[in-house]
């Protein structure tokens, strides 16, 4: 019996889809059987981020409505041994499925896969409720910006109200040089404000744009900093106790903090 994890954020554009694609790919690289579900019905994007957009025949709504069998709708990613995508419907909307239907679908998929990752749409309405319904755990993605942290706080409140998702945080697109100047919140600031466990930190990386252009998850590239961060996160999801990614240019430890506090450029 696998585990279903929803990747959510409240705010749009903070990297939910990229995070879903890369954690999924990294888990598959680590030998896990992984299925990704795009729960953003009407605005699907996980297919293009994964580079699988030309292979869609059936989608999530087809499966839920019984037009297609799950195994016919799942797209196998040929670059990874055990990675599959269940795409969202593009010509329907959020009301095409119900939380109960999602719960049943995810439950069925957990029989087959070690991990079922659900890419949640932005917002807190029905799309969010659907995406969360079948999940055991939640990952909240937030960037170090006021708007993103505020929305993340709202999402965490909604998840904690249900007392079953144990949300953990991924701080995305952190820029060490700005953190050093005091112009960007650091990981400690985010944890302090959101009062939630940290799952990982992903540095801002131009390579993500390249990887999205090509439809190839960044974890396929050994040079990508973000790719490395997602590999570490996936190992943490597998229960390994790996340290946080070292961010360049950021003062670490007591000396670093002291420098940061006194504004000494180290």
């Amino acid at each position, binding site marked *: 019996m696998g585990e279903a994890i929803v990747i959510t954020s409240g705010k749009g554009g903070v990297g939910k889809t990229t995070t879903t694609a890369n954690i999924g790919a990294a888990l598959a690289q680590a030998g896990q059987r992984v299925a990704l579900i795009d729960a953003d019905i009407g605005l699907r994007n996980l297919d293009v981020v994964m580079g699988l957009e030309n292979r869609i025949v059936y989608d999530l709504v087809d499966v839920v409505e019984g037009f297609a069998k799950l195994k016919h709708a799942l797209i196998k990613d040929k670059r990874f041994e055990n990675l599959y995508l269940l795409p969202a419907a593009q010509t329907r909307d959020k009301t095409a499925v119900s939380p109960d239907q999602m719960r049943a679908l995810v439950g069925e998929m957990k029989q087959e896969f070690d991990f079922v990752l659900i890419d949640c749409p932005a917002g807190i309405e029905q799309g969010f409720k659907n995406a969360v319904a079948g999940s055991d755990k939640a990952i909240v993605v937030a960037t170090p910006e006021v708007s993103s942290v505020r929305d993340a706080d709202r999402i965490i409140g909604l998840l904690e109200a249900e007392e079953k998702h144990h949300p953990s945080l991924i701080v995305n697109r952190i820029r060490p040089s700005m953190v050093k*100047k*005091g112009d960007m919140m650091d990981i400690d*600031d985010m944890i302090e404000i959101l009062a939630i466990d940290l799952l990982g930190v992903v540095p801002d990386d131009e390579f993500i744009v390249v990887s999205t252009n090509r439809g190839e998850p960044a974890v396929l590239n050994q040079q990508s900093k973000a790719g490395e961060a997602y590999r570490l996160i996936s190992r943490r999801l597998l229960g390994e106790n790996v340290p946080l990614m070292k961010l360049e240019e950021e003062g670490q430890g007591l000396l670093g903090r002291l420098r940061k506090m006194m*504004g000494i450029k180290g």
Partner: protein
Amino acid sequence: MFDLFARVFGREDASKEVAKERLRLVLVHDRSSLSPQALESLKNDLLQVISQYLDIDDQGFRVDFSRHEDAMALVANIPIKKKVSRNL
């Protein structure tokens, strides 16, 4: 305290401190799940009750959430003009 550090070391423009302070305040409101209208009506009710006993300066009357370490508090600032004399 931070302001002092910032001024001494010429870093008063560290904008993350501004971000954190603004977030703390906005989140106190968000988490309270009390709408601005409800807060306004609470304020008016308080004003009405208290003015039965005291002569309040309603221009300076403030009711707002604030954060004290980890706890949230509703803080009312009620300037008093003078005690209403009552014949018992």
